C-alpha cells in the first residue's frame, strides 16, 4: 500500500493518502466478483438469444475498466468540482432524457435507451447520482443560508426528474430517485411535520402508481398472490438458491442461467447462489453493507454539511439498488427491474454507478480543513 510516502505532496500522493482506501477496495472486490459472475451467467443467456457466447462478457470487460477509470477520475474532484461536474452531467442527462422520449428505442414497453451507432446509453442511470449531488447542494444551501430557496429548487428538480422517468415509464428508477430525495430531505433537517408529509406523499404515490400503471398493478398482484400469475423467474431463482446450498454446485454447474432471460442482469445473484453458494451471496451483501456503513461513518465525521447530505444521498441510491435487487431476487418484494451495482451486466448502469461512487470517494476524502468547503 505504501506506494506513496506520507510526505509525497504530488496530486496522486495526496489522493492516495486522503482517499477512503477501504471503500475503494470493497468496490473493486464487488466489481471483481461481478466479472466472475458475468463469466458464469452471461454465456448461457447469450447462447439462448442467439448471440456469440462471450458477447456480454466481452462488452462487460470493456465497461468495467471504463468504469474504474471514471471512478478514479471522479474521486479526485474537490467538493466544489463535484458540484460543477454533477451539474453538467445532470443537465446533460436531462436533455438526453427528453431526447429519449422522442428518439428512444422501445424495449419491453418502455423507452429508456438512446442508440448511437452500435452503442446505447441509458441517460436515467446518470441522472441518479448527479441529481443526488444537485439536491444535496440545494438542501444544504438553504439550511445554512435562508436567502437561497434551496428546498423549493430541490423539490422542483425532483419533480422534473420523476416526471421524465414516469413518461418512459420507469417506475423502479422513480422509486430510487424519490427515496434519495426523501432521505436527503430528512437529513437536511427539515421539520418532522414536513418529513411526515413527504412519507405520506410517497405512500399516496405508491397507491397512485398501483392504480395508474397496469404493469405495476400486475406485478404487485402477482407478488401478493403467487398462484395468480406466472412468477416464473422468481420461482426459478428461489430454487436456484436452494440447489446451491452453502457452497454452491460449483462454477458452471448451475442451471438457472439456462432458463432465466435476466440471469446476467437482474437475477445474477440467483446464479451466484446456485453456483457459488450462500457464502458468496453473504459476502456480496456484506460488501455492499460495508461500503454503505463505511461511507456513512466518513460522512458522519465530516464537518461539511453539503458533504454529509450529498454522500448520504449517493450511498442511499447505491444501497437501495442493491437492496431492491436482492429483495426482488429472493421474493421479498415484487420483482422490479433493478441492476445489482457493479455485478449485473450493463454499460450505462456500471459506468453511472462508478461515477456515483467516484463522487462518494471524492466527497469522503480527508480534507484537513476544520470547517470544510462551506
Amino acid at each position, binding site marked *: 500500500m505504501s506506494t506513496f510516502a506520507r510526505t509525497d505532496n504530488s496530486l496522486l500522493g495526496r489522493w492516495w493518502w486522503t482517499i477512503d482506501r477501504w471503500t475503494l477496495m470493497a468496490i473493486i472486490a464487488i466489481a471483481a466478483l461481478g466479472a466472475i459472475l458475468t463469466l458464469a451467467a452471461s454465456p448461457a443467456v447469450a447462447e439462448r438469444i442467439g448471440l456469440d457466447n462471450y458477447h456480454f462478457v466481452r462488452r462487460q470487460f470493456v465497461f468495467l475498466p471504463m468504469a474504474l477509470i471514471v471512478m478514479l477520475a471522479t474521486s479526485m474532484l474537490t467538493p466544489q468540482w463535484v458540484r460543477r461536474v454533477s451539474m453538467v452531467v445532470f443537465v446533460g442527462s436531462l436533455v438526453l432524457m427528453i431526447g429519449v422520449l422522442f428518439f428512444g428505442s422501445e424495449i419491453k414497453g418502455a423507452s429508456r435507451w438512446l442508440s448511437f451507432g452500435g452503442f446505447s446509453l441509458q441517460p436515467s442511470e446518470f441522472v441518479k447520482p448527479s441529481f443526488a449531488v444537485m439536491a444535496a447542494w440545494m438542501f444544504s444551501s438553504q439550511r445554512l443560508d435562508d436567502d437561497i430557496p434551496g428546498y423549493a429548487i430541490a423539490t422542483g428538480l425532483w419533480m422534473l426528474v420523476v416526471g421524465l422517468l414516469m413518461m418512459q415509464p420507469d417506475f423502479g428508477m422513480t422509486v430510487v430517485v424519490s427515496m434519495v430525495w426523501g432521505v436527503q430531505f430528512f*437529513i*437536511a*433537517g427539515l421539520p418532522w411535520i414536513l418529513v411526515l408529509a413527504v412519507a405520506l406523499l410517497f405512500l399516496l404515490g405508491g397507491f397512485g402508481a398501483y392504480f395508474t400503471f397496469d404493469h405495476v398493478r400486475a406485478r404487485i398482484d402477482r407478488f401478493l398472490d403467487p398462484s395468480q400469475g406466472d412468477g416464473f423467474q422468481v*420461482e426459478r431463482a428461489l430454487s436456484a438458491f*436452494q440447489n446451491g446450498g452453502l457452497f454452491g454446485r460449483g462454477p458452471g454447474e448451475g442451471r438457472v442461467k439456462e432458463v432465466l432471460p435476466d440471469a446476467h442482469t437482474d437475477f445474477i445473484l440467483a446464479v451466484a447462489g446456485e453456483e457459488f453458494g450462500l457464502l458468496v*451471496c453473504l459476502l456480496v451483501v456484506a460488501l455492499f453493507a460495508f461500503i454503505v456503513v463505511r461511507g456513512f461513518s466518513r460522512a458522519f465525521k465530516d464537518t461539511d*454539511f453539503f458533504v*454529509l447530505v450529498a454522500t448520504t444521498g449517493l450511498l442511499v441510491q447505491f444501497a437501495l439498488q442493491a*437492496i431492491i435487487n436482492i429483495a426482488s431476487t429472493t421474493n421479498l418484494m415484487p420483482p422490479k427491474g433493478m441492476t445489482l451495482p457493479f455485478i449485473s451486466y450493463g454499460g450505462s448502469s456500471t459506468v453511472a454507478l462508478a461515477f456515483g461512487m467516484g463522487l462518494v470517494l471524492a466527497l469522503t476524502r480527508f480534507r484537513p480543513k476544520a470547517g470544510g468547503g462551506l
Partner: protein
Amino acid sequence: MSKNTASEQAILFDSLDPDRIRVESARKLALETGRTRLLVTGVVLCLAFAALAVRLAELTAFGIPPGVRLASLSPHNKPITARADIRDRNAMLIATSLPTRSLFADPRDVMDIEEAALKLGALLPNLSAEDVRHKLALGGRFQWIARNLTPTQVYAVNRLGLPGFSFRDGERRVYPFGPIFAHVLGYTDVDGRGIAGVERAFDEKLSEPVAPGETRGIDLALDLRFQTILREELAAAQQRFSAVGAAGVVIDAKTGEVLAMASLPDFNPNEPEQALGKNGFNRATKGVYEMGSTFKLFSTATALDSGAVSIADGYDTSEPIKAARFTINDFHGKKRWLSVPEILVYSSNIGTAKMALEVGAKKQKEYMRRFGMLSPAAIEIPEVGHPLYPERWGEISTMTISYGHGIAVSPLHVASGVATLVNGGVMHPPSILKRDANSLIVEERVLAPKTSATMRALMRLVVRFGTGKNADVKGYRVGGKTGTAEKQVGGGYSEDALVSSFVGAFPMNDPRYVVLVVIDEPKGIKSSFGFATGGWVAAPAVKSIVGRIAALTGMLPQDVSDEEPIKPGTPFYIPARATQPAPKIALGGIARAAH
C-alpha cells in the same frame, strides 16, 4: 452557499462578526441534526441488509418457504410409488420394478399416418406398420402404441421427430430368475397390478407409497437355492418319466415356512402371456389329488394317537376286504398277519383299512380336520384348491380314505400334514412369508409327542426296509412314505394314469425339512422296470433333492450305525425277507386299490 475562500481557522477565530456567528451556529445545528438523522438512516439500511442476509440463508439452508409452488424441485421428498421389491429369505431380489417409458399417440395430432406407421414399424420390434396404422385409425385422443421401451428405443423414436407421439413414464415388473418362482410369485398385468400368486396376495402392500428411507418390500420364506434345486429335480423326473406334470414342496418342519414350492409345467412371469392355459395352473396348491398311500401316514398316526390301535398290534392281510361293491386289495401283498409297522412299511391297504375301522368315521374325520385336510390350505397366495371328500363319511369312505382314496387334497396339504407328524405333533399353517425370530408362530397341537416320535420311527422304517428305499440318502436318515394313486378318468379309475408321490422328512431323529414330490401321469421306463409308482418315480427325486439341500444347509452326514439292526420281537422289527413269497396280484375288479 458561501464563496468565502478564507480558511476555516480564520472563520473560527474571527468570531466577533455577527454574520459569521449566525452562519457558524446554523452550520453546527445542521450538522448535529444531520448526523442524528444519518445515524437513523444508517441503522435502517443495516437492518435491511441484515434482513437480506437472513433471507438468503433461509432460502439456501432451510429450504423454500411454504406457499411457493415448487413441488417439482424437491424430488428427494417424494414418496416412493414404484411397486416394492420381493426378496427371498436370504434377501435375494426375486421381483423388482424398473422405470420404463411407453409410447402413446394422440391420433389427431399425427400429421402423416402412413409415414408414422412405416417408420415406427421399421424401428420397433413386435410392432408392425399395420399395427400402427390400425391403432391410429381407432381415433380418440389417446392410443398406446408400444409399451416398455428401452432408453435406446426412446431415443430412436424421438429422433424420428414424429408429431403426435409422446411418452408416458411407467414401470415394468422384472423377475430376475424367470420361471424359477413362477407360480408362487405370480405376475402383474400391464398396469402393474398383481393378478396371481404373491403379487396378487400382497398387491396392496407392494403398491402402497412410502416415505423415503422406510423399508419396504416383502421377504418370502422361499429360499432361491432350494427353489432352484426343487424345480430342477422335478423337471428331470418329469422328463425321465414323460409325465404331464409335477409338483413339489419343501417345508420347514418346525415353523411351517414354505422354503420351496414348484409346479410344472410352468411359465416365465416376465412374459405373463405364457401363464395362460395349463402352464399357469399351480399344481402344488390349486390342484387337488387323491394322494394314495402317503395318506396311510395320517391313518396310522390317527389310529395310534386316538388309542384305538397300539404299535404292538397287527392285522391279517391275507384276504381282500369285500364291502358292498368294493374289493380292497394289496399291491405289495404279504398275504399274512402284519404288525402295525409292517402294514405301513409294506403299504398294506387291507391292514390300514382295518385299523381305520377301529378308529371309526367320526374320529377319523376329526383327525383329518386337525391335519388341515378338510379346508383349503392356509397359505397366503390366492390359488388354493378346496379339498374334495365325501359328504356322507360312511364305513366304506373311512376305509378308502385311510389309504388316500375318496379324498383329494393339494400336495401342500400333505407336506404341511407330514410336518405336523414329525415335528412333535403341532400344526403350523404353512407360510409363504419369512418368519423372523420375533413373529408369533401359530401352532395347534394335533398329536401327542409320543405319537410323533413313533411316526418318525415308522417313516424311517419305510425308507430302510419298505417302498421308500430309493429315497434314502446315506447319513441323513430320510424317512417318508410313497404313494401311487390311479387318477379318475371319466367315471372310473385309470390304470395307466397315476399320481405317484413320495413325501419325506429328514433327519428323522430331529426332522428339519419335509420334502414332497408328486409326479402326474409318469410312464414306466426300463430303469424303473416298467414301474411308474411313487417308490420308483418320486422317491429318487426326493433323494436327489435331500442330498443337494442337505449339502447347502451345512448339515453333516450322521453316523447311522445305531440304526442297525432291529431285533426280532421288538415292535419295529421288520423281517428281512417275507415268510411267504408274495403271490402275483391281479389288479382288477371295481375297486382300484392304492399302492
